[in-house]
Every structure is written in structure tokens, then in C-alpha cells.
């Protein structure tokens, strides 16, 4: 990547004997909305705190805006952070909280006031200037934390699960606001979350992390359509996995033996696949067709509908298939009129291009 805002090269972090981060290396582009996605304990927050300068990496190098960050303390970095707890100063008012960092920016009083006013307006807190932290709602506290960081005009804004403490409705509202705010200010956002839906909605690119490593970095669509391993496939969305053994690799296609499922044909992954290799055929629930006709040919298996959940616009089916321990999950749009009831014998089928080949 040319001239990235953040370059992470071989960053590692250990706490005692626990290795929280292992050989992290990637770039973040200027103006990008970049998410670190992973379950708790995967190291995403530690990485964010290293970017902020609150934690120091045990090994590796970090460059922000072309400058190496080794030995640069948090207060001298072009980054600001929105903390998970918001960390609103309880002894200060909204205005004092937001203006906190401007003291260190060599501004005149008038300039500082103008910047604070602008930030208060940006996050829609006008009129709440003199409130103290304990008089604010969760959403308002979140806005104060955002304004307090943005008012310093950082090159990178770091957000540590800023929406996790909000209820669902408010969270969805704030997601929209965050996204449009990021477009308005044009600052690079690095966003930590454990919520895959949130990451997909907001991000330009997402790094999926697990056990201190980055598993895959891609656009939301790339992660969902082309996960590079089982962990990513299962973490982002729902994935049906059929164990199989490669029989033949033919150009863009992998033909595999699915035992009780018959022959399975899938799209070749980027990595080389050898004949005889044990793999997983991976299918998203919405890519599977459900029909009353009997199963015939490759990528077609017979099953029995174990349960149906009606969700308005679509229904979720769990289909029991002989030879599989877990039922196959199928999403089907309810715009199709033919209903399939629980207990019905059905055939599941899908196209070759939708089946992914993942390492077992």
C-alpha cells in the first residue's frame, strides 16, 4: 500500500508468559474505516492500545503517518481514543470534558472555544454544555467521548467497542451516525468490535483476529463471500460445513467425495489443493435451494426439515441430512410462495460457484 496512515510490522505483545499478539503486520489506508473484529481475548483491544501508545509492543515496529512510534508516548501521538467505558471525567462538565485536550494545542482562548462549539454541534450536544457526566444518558456520554477525541483533530481516531454499552435501537442509530461522521471529518477510524454485524455495516475493511493473530483482512463482502479459513467463515455469518475428500482438481473447480452426500463440486481456493486432501465444503445458508424434488447429481443432497423459524421477510430452516452431525441451515426468502413445512422430505442443492473449499 502506498503511503498508509498506519503501518504495523511484526508487532508482538506479551504479558508475562501470555502472548497477546503474534506477528501482526498490515497497513491501514488514509481515510479508511477499519475494524478489528474478534471474540473477547483475541488481542484486538491490546492492538488498539498499542496504536494509542497506552501499551508498548514487546517486539515489532509501528509507523503512524510516516513517523516511527517507538518511544513516542500517548500524549504525543496523532491519535485519539474513544474508550469502551467512555472515560468521561466525572468532575468536569460536558464543555470542560470536550475542551480537555485543547489546552495542549497552543490555541488562543477564542480558537479553543470555537473548536469546542463546533465539536458540540457536530455530535448534537448543543445546550448540554454545563451538564456533568452523571446527568448524561449512555448515548450522550458516548457523544461526549467522541467529541472530546475529535476536537483534537487526530489523524487517526481509535474506538474501543464504543457501542457495546448501548441498547440495540440506539446502537443502530449510532452506527449510522458514526459512519456519516467519519465521512464528514474524513479521519481514519480504527474500530474495535466483537459484533460481526456491526463490523460488516460500518467498515471499509475488516481484520478478523483470533488468538492474537490476524486471520484475514478483507472488505465486508470479501470476508463473507470468500473467507480464507473455517474460523473466519464461522465467525462472520453462518456457514454450513461438509467434510469431504478431494478427488480431482480441474481448473477452477474442485471435485470432492462427500461420502453420504455424494459428489461435491466447489470453487478452487487461492491456495493450491492436492488430490486426496481432506477439506470442508462451505456453503452460506442463503446459497442453498430447498425443493420437494428428489436429490440427483453432484451438489444435491436429500434431507428432512427438522424445524422452521419464521422471521417475516425470510424463514430459517434446519434440515437433517444423513451422514452429517449438525443440521444444515438454510435461509429462504418468503417472497417464494411455496411453503415447506417441518417434517417434509426435501432436496438441497446449490451451484458449484457458491461452494467454497476450506482447509479441514
Amino acid at each position, binding site marked *: 500500500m502506498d503511503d498508509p496512515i498506519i503501518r504495523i510490522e511484526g508487532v508482538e505483545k506479551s504479558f508475562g508468559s501470555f502472548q497477546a499478539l503474534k506477528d501482526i503486520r498490515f497497513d491501514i489506508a488514509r481515510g479508511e474505516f477499519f475494524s478489528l473484529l474478534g471474540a473477547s481475548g483475541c488481542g484486538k483491544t491490546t492492538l488498539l492500545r498499542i496504536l*494509542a501508545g497506552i501499551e508498548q509492543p514487546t517486539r515489532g515496529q509501528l509507523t503512524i503517518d510516516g513517523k516511527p512510534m517507538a518511544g513516542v508516548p500517548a*500524549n504525543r501521538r496523532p491519535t485519539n481514543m474513544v474508550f469502551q467505558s467512555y472515560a468521561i471525567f*466525572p468532575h468536569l462538565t460536558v464543555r470542560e470534558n470536550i475542551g*480537555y*485536550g485543547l489546552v495542549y494545542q497552543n490555541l488562543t482562548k477564542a480558537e479553543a472555544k470555537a473548536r469546542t462549539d463546533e465539536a458540540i454541534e457536530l455530535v448534537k450536544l448543543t445546550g448540554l454544555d454545563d451538564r456533568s457526566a452523571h446527568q448524561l444518558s449512555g448515548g450522550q456520554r458516548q457523544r461526549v467521548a467522541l467529541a472530546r477525541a475529535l476536537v483534537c483533530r487526530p489523524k487517526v481516531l481509535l474506538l474501543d467497542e464504543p457501542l457495546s454499552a448501548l441498547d440495540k435501537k440506539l446502537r443502530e442509530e449510532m452506527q449510522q451516525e458514526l459512519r456519516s461522521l467519519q465521512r464528514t471529518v474524513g479521519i481514519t477510524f480504527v474500530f474495535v468490535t466483537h459484533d460481526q454485524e456491526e463490523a460488516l455495516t460500518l467498515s471499509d475493511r475488516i481484520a478478523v483476529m483470533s488468538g492474537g493473530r490476524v486471520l484475514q483482512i478483507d472488505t465486508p463482502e470479501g470476508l463473507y463471500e470468500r473467507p480464507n479459513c473455517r474460523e473466519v467463515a464461522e465467525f462472520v455469518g453462518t456457514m454450513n460445513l461438509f467434510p469431504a475428500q478431494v478427488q480431482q482438481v480441474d481448473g477452477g473447480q474442485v471435485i470432492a467425495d462427500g461420502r453420504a452426500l455424494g459428489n461435491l463440486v466447489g470453487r478452487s481456493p487461492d491456495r493450491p489443493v492436492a488430490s486426496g486432501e481432506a477439506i470442508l465444503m462451505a456453503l452460506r445458508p442463503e446459497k442453498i435451494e430447498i425443493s420437494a424434488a428428489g436429490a440427483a447429481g453432484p451438489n444435491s443432497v436429500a434431507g428432512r426439515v427438522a424445524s422452521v423459524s419464521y422471521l417475516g421477510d425470510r424463514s430459517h430452516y434446519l434440515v437433517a441430512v444423513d451422514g452429517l452431525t449438525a443440521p444444515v441451515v438454510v435461509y429462504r426468502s418468503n417472497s417464494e410462495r411455496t411453503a415447506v413445512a417441518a417434517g417434509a422430505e426435501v432436496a438441497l442443492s446449490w451451484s458449484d460457484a457458491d461452494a467454497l473449499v476450506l482447509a479441514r
Partner: protein
Amino acid sequence: MTRRFDPLFLYAVLFVLFLYGPMLLMPLFSLNDGNFATFPLKGFTLRHYGEMAQNTSMMTALKNSLIVGLGVSVTATALALPAALALTRYRVPAGGAILSFMMLPLVVPSIVLAVGLLIVVLRLLSLPLSLWTVAAGHLMLCIPFGMTVLMSRLEGFDKSLEEASRDLGASGWSTFRRVTLPLAAPGVISSLLLCFIISFDEFVISFFLTGTDNTLPVFLFSQLRFPNRLPGTLALGSLILVGSAVLVIVAEIVRKRGVASDNPGDI
């Protein structure tokens, strides 16, 4: 609605009487026109308060105690604050051991402490006994109390507040001044009050370590041999009682205000 008599209410009244009744006899007898603290009361007078004010040695002892108390409370709090910060905010090697060691004066009987300090001062350091040695002894006793109060306060607030301050551009010192200290303020005030009261009230260490200058408790003890001086002592005691009640009430108000501002509404 008529309330039934609650035996627990009677218990509570008796309990409070038991605690505070004897203390209330002191102001009562200090206003009694007689030289002995006995019933029946003889009449109202303020003359004991006049005698008290004219008793120069008593006033000197009071002054000594106030000076030592103020000096000790400020010094002990100033020394305890950095230690409390280090132990609550940073990973200090052997922090637990250091803390237990600092808390030792809380569990060592003060008579043992006093004898030990006397030997140290006279034999090892060869210093003359004075109010300075008394203050040093009090300091040792007060630091663990200050630590306890300050640490519980510092542990109570979110570490990310200090991280946020650093992140927004503040240096370590600036963070201490703008965030840590204001948030620790209720703890600092409690520590100052607590240390002052401990020093003001302390008898054993003062008795052993003082030279010719008496602190108030030591002076009062020496006066008990002279019954006719008792009313003056009662007058002074009454004034101190009122003073401490005011201090405690102020401290409680400060503490409550601190608690209110730290528990911002739930998210």
C-alpha cells in the same frame, strides 16, 4: 395507622445512650458551678471556661497538639499519596509485601512501638526528646491510615480516566493535577482529618517520646492528680467534642459529595 411498639427501637435508644451518654456528662459538668464532677448539680456557670483560657500550660499543650497534628496530617498524607498511587496504579514488584510492611504499625501495639522508638531515638540516633520526636512517632502511626483511606479511594475510580487524559495530550504530571488529584480529593481530605485526629488523640507514643513540651493528652493525664483542676479540663474537653463533631460532619458531607459525582447515571 398506629405503629406498634418495636422492642428493637428501645434497643437502639439504649445503644445510643450507652455510646454517647457518658460523653454528654462532660459538657454538663463543665457548666456546673462546683469543683467536683458529682450530682446534684449546683448551678449554671461559665467560669470554668474562663479558668481554662487562663491556664497557660493547658493552652500551650493544646497549641503543641494542634501544631503536631496539623504537621503530621499534612506530611503523612503527602507521603501516603504517592505510595498509594504506585500500589494501585502500577505493577510494583513485590507490591503486596511492600503494602503489608507499610501496614505493620496498624497491628503492632503502640506501647511496643513507643518503647522501640524511644530506644531508636535515644540510643541509636542520640536525639533529644522533643515535639519533633513525637511528630515522627505519630507520622509512622498515621501513614498506614492515610494509605488505607487513599488506596480505597484510588481503587474506586476507572483507570481509563487517566489513560484518556494521557491520550488527549496531557503529560503524566498534568494528568495527576487535572484528573487524579481532583478525583482523589475526597480521599485526601479524609486522610488529612483522620491523621489529624489520630495524632491529636495519641497518648502512648507522645508520653514516651516527648521532652519538656507536653501534648494535650499527656498534659491532661498529668492534671488528673489535682481534682480542683478537673472542671477546666472538662471545659476544654467539651470544646474539643464540639470541634470534632463539626469536623466529622464536614468530612461526611465532603465524602458524600465525592460519591455522588463518581457514580454517573447507569448506562
